[in-house]
């Protein structure tokens, strides 16, 4: 036993380090899971006079995708979002800190997966949602409760692993 002790300690440490290698420090646990989505009312891009607020979506399961035209990772998920929108997933955008207001032109050029995009110019709504960077996607249920937060671009893999089962369950 005594002879094996250093090896056991080394193996334990190695195990911790190995797990640590695969942890993503960006995956900050969100305190919003299971809590109501913070309320806001913001103008909708491209529709003067129209505003969006999460309450309008009561009764359906929807995604709130926080993005910005200056965000490179958001371009990566654009294709995946377009496919999801075509499949009928309701995606609402929060255009975060788009100081140059490029979103409208960008969506006209590349197409928009969003049912509506709210404009959060000074980033305050983003702070209310605990956004640390774009893209971030919230899954909000029929009663307006946040059920999941995904940090980083959506792709086919994480959609199938994380989103699809949850959406199926919530849509029941």
């Amino acid at each position, binding site marked *: 036993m005594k002879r094996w002790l250093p090896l056991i300690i080394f193996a334990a440490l190695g195990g911790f380090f190995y797990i640590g290698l695969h942890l993503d*420090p960006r995956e*900050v*646990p*969100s*305190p*919003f899971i299971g809590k109501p989505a913070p309320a806001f009312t913001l103008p909708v891009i491209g529709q003067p006079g129209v505003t969006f607020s999460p309450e309008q979506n009561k009764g359906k399961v929807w995604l709130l995708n926080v993005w910005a035209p200056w965000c490179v990772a958001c371009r990566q998920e654009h294709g995946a979002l377009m496919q999801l929108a075509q499949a009928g997933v309701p995606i609402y955008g929060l255009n975060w*800190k788009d100081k140059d207001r490029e979103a409208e032109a960008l969506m006209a050029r590349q197409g928009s997966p969003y049912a509506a995009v709210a404009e959060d110019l*000074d*980033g*305050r709504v983003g*702070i*209310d*949602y*605990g956004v*640390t*960077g774009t893209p971030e996607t919230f899954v909000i249920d029929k009663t307006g409760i946040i059920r999941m937060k995904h940090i980083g671009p959506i792709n086919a893999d994480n959609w199938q692993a994380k989103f699809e089962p949850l959406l199926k369950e919530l849509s029941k």
Partner: protein
Amino acid sequence: MKRLFLMLLASLAMPVWAAEAVPVGDDPAIEARMVNLATDLRCLVCQNESLAGSHAELAEDLRREIREQMRAGKSDKEVVTYLTDRYGDFVLYRPPFRSYTLLLWLGPVIFLGIGAVAWFLTLRRRRAIKVTDQVSVASLKQAADLLDEKQD
């Protein structure tokens, strides 16, 4: 000559002023409170920098938010609650004592306990060795006596 010296001194003072070029709010008291609080808060973009020292845009926004809330008369505690409500305990550089931080807080005590137990066990073993030494001295003597008897 003296005037020249003073001018030289004055020019030396310039870089010192430049170091304080951080955007300062109107009220130095609130600014001091904000910096004092933000030193203990984590910037969520750079993660290993404090909110006070970070140049990330989100950090600037959060400093603005803290400043405005302090100006509105909120206490430091209320501001911290505002931040933890949104970003979780992760923003705090001093983690609170919770069920899931038990190991973090009590870990050092546990390790100290393990050390104390190991120390105690080692001491006891050493003491036990001394006793057996005495026994073996006695049995050595017995063995010597036996050998002596054989020689007779």
